[in-house]
């Protein structure tokens, strides 16, 4: 299996993975890129989009291409925390408590429609996402690396949902918006299904692994060596700090967002084949890093603003790095 040793290798590998995923998930290049950046950065992703856009397909393809374990949990209002993490059960034969591991014991966890479960079930993921471990009956189990939670939520049909708490939202590195493919891509997709190039179920069996956990680990290590100039780092921090007192925002992003922005910028530079970060890399990842970490003020909402428009204004106003 391919394991990169240089930055050029890592870039090539990243592009190979992107290419494979884009063959299955047609017309979602930006989504694929952002999910991969989050994966290499060691973060989690919250994907928001209407049903039928291939969110589950993306995660399954990712598991296949990277040879990672994959589990899916459909979040429902009656889901219990132990249904996610696992629990201890009494074994009558051995007369001992036995740990039954939940679906969170995996490498890629798809938390489908995460906002349909109540807050206590959502909170079961807090430890998993931050510490990458699960504690059952006082015993901590460390999860295998890489570990990534991909949670999805539907922007429509909000009835009977439980909005994610800020603490949980902050633990997602990116919030990725998945939208309908454009006309040309959708035509290509339908044609491919009709002529049998891909099956209607869009199964991922045809995909072959490109790398594995070790390859990803090597990519992550290489991304850590990407140079980020002090001015560029300062620019990233100024963007995050600007969210805290920007007109139209009632809550800004935390320092965790600053770390996320710098880390994701490095991976973005790596994906672009550079060993240094430019201000453009920072701008490129600023929206997915910040859009779920800011809260619009009431008057901005009344004016019809969205987090996207507010971030657009903010990025226009924060001065790019000085000489």
């Amino acid at each position: 299996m391919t394991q990169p040793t240089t930055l050029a290798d890592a870039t090539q590998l990243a592009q190979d993975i992107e290419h494979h995923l884009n063959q299955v998930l047609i017309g979602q290049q930006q989504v694929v890129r952002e999910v991969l950046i989050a994966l290499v950065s060691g973060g989690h992703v919250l994907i928001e989009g209407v049903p039928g856009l291939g969110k589950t397909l993306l995660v399954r393809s990712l598991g296949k291409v990277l040879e990672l374990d994959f589990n899916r949990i459909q979040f429902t209002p009656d889901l219990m925390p132990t249904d996610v993490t696992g629990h201890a059960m009494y074994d009558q034969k051995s007369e001992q408590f036995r740990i039954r591991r939940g679906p969170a014991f995996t490498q890629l966890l798809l938390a489908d429609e995460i906002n349909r479960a109540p807050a206590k079930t959502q909170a079961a993921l807090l430890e998993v996402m931050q510490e990458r471990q699960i504690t059952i009956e006082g015993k901590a189990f460390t999860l295998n690396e890489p570990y990534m939670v991909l949670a999805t939520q539907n922007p429509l049909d909000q009835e009977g949902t439980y909005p994610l708490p800020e603490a949980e939202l902050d633990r997602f590195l990116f919030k990725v918006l998945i939208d309908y493919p454009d006309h040309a891509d959708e035509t290509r997709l339908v044609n491919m299904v009709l002529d049998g190039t891909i099956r209607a179920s869009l199964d991922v069996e045809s995909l072959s692994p490109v790398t594995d956990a070790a390859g990803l680990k090597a990519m992550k290590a290489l991304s850590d060596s990407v140079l980020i100039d002090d001015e560029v780092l300062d620019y990233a921090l100024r963007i995050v700090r600007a969210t805290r007192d920007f007109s139209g925002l009632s809550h800004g992003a935390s320092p965790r967002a600053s770390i996320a922005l710098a880390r994701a910028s490095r991976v973005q530079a790596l994906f672009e084949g550079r060993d240094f970060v430019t201000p453009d890399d920072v701008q490129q990842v600023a929206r997915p890093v910040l859009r779920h970490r800011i809260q619009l003020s009431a008057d901005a909402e009344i004016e019809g603003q969205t987090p996207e428009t507010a971030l657009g204004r903010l990025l226009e106003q924060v001065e790019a790095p000085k000489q």
Partner: protein
Amino acid sequence: MELEKASARLAPRSPWQAVDLGTKLYRQWAAPVLWVWLAFTLAPFGLLLGWSLLAETLWPLFLFWWLKPLWERPLLAWYSHALFAETLTLKQLFQRWRHYALPGLASQLTWRRFSPARSFNTCVWQLEGAKEEQLSQRLRALNSYPSNRAGIMTIVVLHLEQFMAMGLMVLLYTLVPWQFSLEWSDWFYDQGALQMAIASATLYLVMFVTEPLYVACGFALYLNKRTWLEGWDLQLGLTRLGRHRATRSGATVLMLLALMLLPLPEPATAQPAPRNEEQQEVIELLASPDYMPFEERTERQWKDRDEDSNSWLEEFWKHFFDNLDDDEQPESSSQPFDIPDAVLWILFWALFAGLVIWLLTKVMNQLGLGSQRRDHSPVIPTHVAGMDIRRHSLPKNLRQAVENALAANDIRLALSLMLRSALASLLRRYPVALAAGSTEQQCLRNLKAAHGEPLPILYLQRLIQAWISTAWAHRPVDADAVRSLLTHWEEIRAEEAADA
């Protein structure tokens, strides 16, 4: 006008009691006046709405709203006859339209369109038919103290109209099936044909309810004012007395007259009937010139209020208006605000005209009909990627400054100077829209998108590559490459100068 035929009791009332009477009139004759309203407005509204939808403009609907004084005339004609026991048919209203609708209409549709006392003044024009020279005198007399409150009543009805329209729109919004996923903003601000038709129909429906009420209240205020000024209640009382004179003794008549003119005592403190001497005293008192003397006062006068309640603002206005009135007072010069009446009126009308023009401009701009010419040429930025590119911030001798930086082995500074200089020059020649947050690569992308790839922009691309390598990748280009770039830039400038 035969007062004894009035179907409402004509008695002096407070303005609000008069408005209550107007409400009562409206409730009493709601069905016929609503038919009158529909008969005169439905067809014009339908035509104007159709025009509005076809032409996709709001002007026809605005015209309908503007013509409100015209639509109110038939309502007033109907009320004024109905009160005195004469019910006009729609046919009669149409036949007499020219007589009751035209007096004073031109002024009401132009400079008096925003008169807050419209409902009251319309009665003077329409019912009294006074000539223009008598009219202002008549209006002054009718609008004299005590105030008839017609202006406040207009404001109240205006709010009622707005709240009802808004409430109806909200109600309709709640009835839209959720599958349409209709946003509030789309419902209220979208100017699609359907929304325009719904909003217009809503406004018409509200006016259908409020306009007859408004006219009735204005008419009642008018009746009340005339009752106060002309003693209609006394006239009615005397008429009734006259009818009974033949059968009643003179003493009884006088006693009744006295009782009618004097305030009625409370039942609990009722007095015994007055004796003959007392009746004589009453008659003499009523006949004397000291009883309820009429006087005409033209100066403004402030009410006496508690000293403690006088704020500085009240004091200011008091001085202000006192000075206006006291032209002949020599001590007025010692007071701080000495403004003649004419100046105050000019100021008031100037402010009013300014306000109207401002409102019209806003409305026209909102409707996209403004004549303002927008300059779409991009503004040349002063900073790009945080770099100051204003001319005065750049070195006068670029080569010298770059050589100095190179001598100090500061490649980054040298490139920075060149980049600033190049951007300052290029953005003037090839203007593009840029924000403070635009990076150097965004600047390049925008320049290429807007102006293609002429030589100066291709040069900028090379320069930016050198800058990125030096500044962000920490791999400074060598001094010779910087000099080569500088020479190239000087050649470009020389060519530009030659072309110019």
